[in-house]
């Protein structure tokens, strides 16, 4: 597709835009202004079905795909009936059909939920196309979450997290030797049509649902990653368009943002900036979304190849209905070349054991100590310590080195089951702890980014967390989902390379 055609399709396909005649109620996808029933241009209202659900009206298993979809092998292409009428074509994702003939009647009528996924790309040099005309089965890994906004409380001087969302792919790979993978037992694996952008959108969608916040309030969106599919073209613009962040104006949105890069702390670095923006008077009470998203990269058979995962975490910062206040912050940085990837290189290189003591431990422990010193707190004052988790051993040792006890860090080591999410690592662990934290709990979070630096934050959980809790899909629930599906090493590599 050309760039202009792509732009036109984005407006329809990212949020499943449907037109509805206000006179007769007839719905149209693709949307249009001429009502076939009225026989003339009519008064049309436009509704997005981004948060909707539907059922499979009919479908087929495509065994001989068009060139653009060859990367998927066989898959289910269907016609989906959305909840109040319109039918749209949609591909079922996260589903690998059996080789033998499928009785399609077993699938017709099954509930489905839209997912923001890659459709195809114009080769390695061309555009990548995304849409929400992809669906996963309702009775499967992703439960349907209704989206409704709540009336916001008055602005307060307490600034912090107002909502969060974590997206972990359905597929997993088990490590044959978790001991060699430094405690990582299994890891998340992206499906063939997933990448950093799709993770970011899904995590952001969940954060909006959790916060019950209208996307119009979000005026800034930061996406931190070291695996963005484009070297030049912002992921955050896709997120803004797909999630409708900011006040709509013509066919764009009054909001901004940027993609950031600082190895695994590309996103965590922005939490203080998000909070600072919220406090800035001219920001007029807006909210900020920060997303850490990575399809964590590793060369075949590199030690990293047995620890990397995939997924994203999104946090919304604001000053209304805050579930955890951001109380203190310190960043610590030095030019330490422990891990890097040159422009044009596919995989990062690293300094082996040098990434440990002189890099990770030095920066993380220093940042933790400095932020506690600034806050006048000691490890005893915290319920949890959440650290960047390249594996299960490093954060555990760093926590102990900073004076924490094992029971303060052990519950945060989700890395054992999801792997290293790079930019999403510390944020996902923070989300996993917020899933279970009680009002009054104090949390110390310290990220790490090679190159190198660490951001340390202190959060205090508020009572508002309880009201919002029912709208999360907890990290633990995603880890333990009975629908998670294991793949072999070959499939893991193949799908990962596609992202």
């Amino acid at each position, binding site marked *: 597709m050309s760039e202009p055609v792509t732009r036109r399709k984005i407006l329809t396909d990212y949020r499943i835009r449907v037109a509805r005649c206000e006179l007769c109620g007839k719905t149209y996808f693709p949307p249009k202004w001429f009502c076939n029933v009225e026989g003339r241009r009519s008064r049309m209202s436009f509704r997005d079905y981004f948060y909707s659900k539907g059922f499979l009206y009919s479908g087929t298993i495509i065994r001989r*795909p068009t060139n653009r979809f060859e990367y998927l092998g066989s898959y289910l292409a269907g016609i989906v009936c959305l909840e109040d009428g319109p039918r749209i074509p949609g*591909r079922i994702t996260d589903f690998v059909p059996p080789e033998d003939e499928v009785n399609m009647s077993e699938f017709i009528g099954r509930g489905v939920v839209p997912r923001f996924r890659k459709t195809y790309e114009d080769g390695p040099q061309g555009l990548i196309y995304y849409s929400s005309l992809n669906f996963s089965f309702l009775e499967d890994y992703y439960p349907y979450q209704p989206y409704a906004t709540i009336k916001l409380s008055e602005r307060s001087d307490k600034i912090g997290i107002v909502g969060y969302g974590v997206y972990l792919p359905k597929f997993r790979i088990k490590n044959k030797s978790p001991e060699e993978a430094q405690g990582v037992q299994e890891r998340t694996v992206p499906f063939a049509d997933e990448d950093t952008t799709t993770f970011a959108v899904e995590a952001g969608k969940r954060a909006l649902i959790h916060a019950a916040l209208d996307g119009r309030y979000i005026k800034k969106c930061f996406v931190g990653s070291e695996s963005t599919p484009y070297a030049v073209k912002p992921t955050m613009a896709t997120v803004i368009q797909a999630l409708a962040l900011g006040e709509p104006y013509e066919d764009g949105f009054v909001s901004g943002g940027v993609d950031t890069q600082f190895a695994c702390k590309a996103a965590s670095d922005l939490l203080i900036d998000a909070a600072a923006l919220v406090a800035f008077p001219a920001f007029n009470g807006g909210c900020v979304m920060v997303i850490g998203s990575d399809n964590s990269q590793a060369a075949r058979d590199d030690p990293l190849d047995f620890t990397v995962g995939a997924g994203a975490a999104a946090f919304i910062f604001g000053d209304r209905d805050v579930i955890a206040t951001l109380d203190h912050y310190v960043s610590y940085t030095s030019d330490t070349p422990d891990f890097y990837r040159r422009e044009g290189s596919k995989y990062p290189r690293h300094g082996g054991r040098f990434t440990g003591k002189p890099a990770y431990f030095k920066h993380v422990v220093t940042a933790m100590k400095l932020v506690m010193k600034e806050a006048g707190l000691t490890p005893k004052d915290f319920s949890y310590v959440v650290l960047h988790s390249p594996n299960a051993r490093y954060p555990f040792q760093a926590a102990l080195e900073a004076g924490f006890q094992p029971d303060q860090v052990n519950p945060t080591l989700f890395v054992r089951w999801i792997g290293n999410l790079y930019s999403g690592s510390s944020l996902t662990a923070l989300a996993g702890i917020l899933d279970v934290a009680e009002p009054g709990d104090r949390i110390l979070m310290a990220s790490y980014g090679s190159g190198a630096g660490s951001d340390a934050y202190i959060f205090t959980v508020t009572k508002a967390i309880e009201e919002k809790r029912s709208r999360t899909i907890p990290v633990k629930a995603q880890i333990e989902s009975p629908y998670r599906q294991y793949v072999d090493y070959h499939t893991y590599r193949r799908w990962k390379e596609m992202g």
Partner: protein
Amino acid sequence: MKEIKAKAKPCAAIVGAGRTKFGEHWYESPERLLMIAGEAALESVDHGLRRSDIEACYFGSFLYQVTNKLGLVPGYMARELGVNIPMTNTEAACASGSSALFNACIGIMSGKYDVVLVGGFEKMSDRFSKIVDNLMFAGDPHEFDAGFTFSGLYAAMMARYIHDYGRGDQRCLEALAQVACKNHHHAMGNDYAQFRREITVEDVFKSPLIADPIRLLHCSPISDGAVALIIVNPEVARRYTDTPIYILASQQATDDVSLFTRESLTGIKATRLAVSKALEQAKISLKDVQIAEVHDCFTIEEILFLEDAGFFGRGEGWRGVHESFESFKGSKHIPYVGDFGELIVNPGGGLKADGHPVGATGLRQVWECFVQLRGEAGNHQVSLDKPLNLALCHNIGGTGGIATVHILARSLGEGS
């Protein structure tokens, strides 16, 4: 038995018809295929026809622009024929050929022309993956982006049909295979057919999966070929032949290009409308139709036609097919049997076995009826108790975005 006579006034007459063999013509260009068919059509006119008699040309083709990087068909054909007469090319996906004929009939009926040449062609043999992509031009871009292939769209129709009307009944699946077996059987005597070999229901069930539940042998093939017809004002037809074939009805109807926006996946509205209008124009009833050329791009479509036209009730088509196939004892054409009597569908093998060079197909159907009604079909000539006089051609484009129906007669009744 007495011949069935039509009372309608014909809109045009066919006095000559020619075609190429359908199949893989690796060494022929699209315009060369059309010229082979055109030369054959000119030579088939019994009393002769000069090139200068042709006042206009109507062509039908679908993918020539993307498959062969050609444009401006009139310019190409003006060069090939050495004429400077009005020409037009019609694109209506798989119904391009019949749509060209539809337009030609309008040209004749308007009084503007007395003699026109109608040609349909397609050159599809190429890299397989290229044609799979190109065929999706007959669908909606959103269907393409949802991962559908053209066969996948028909598979979604077939899946829903089985789900609604034949779920759990093996006979329904057998009927969907029997359509292919019947059409292969019919092609055995057709010298022009792409496939001249018998297949069994078991063969269909064992053939490779393309888009569940569609298997390879449920599908018409990728083909190259061309067909040309000489169409004239009925009043001058006898100048050219003693046995013109009259076009009693030429009708067309359209519907949404996108399968997902249609009222139903288990019926083609455009077929229903076009058949109904054609019967009315021809002043005949369904029972009068003796042979039908039906658009069996996938076997489900032949069954949908039987229901859409009204030969069988909704959801009953597969039963009619199954019972007809199972009770057949003869050796030549396998008729569908029902309240309407007997109907021979796709006597030359249909799209399934004769081949499906998209833009040529609609005219190949008319070519088939032309030779059948004149008794010139040779080894695959239909013979019935009654003299053969009335035939119907049904050609659809895409997944039902357009349907064209023509009704042909050998002899006219009083009042025609």
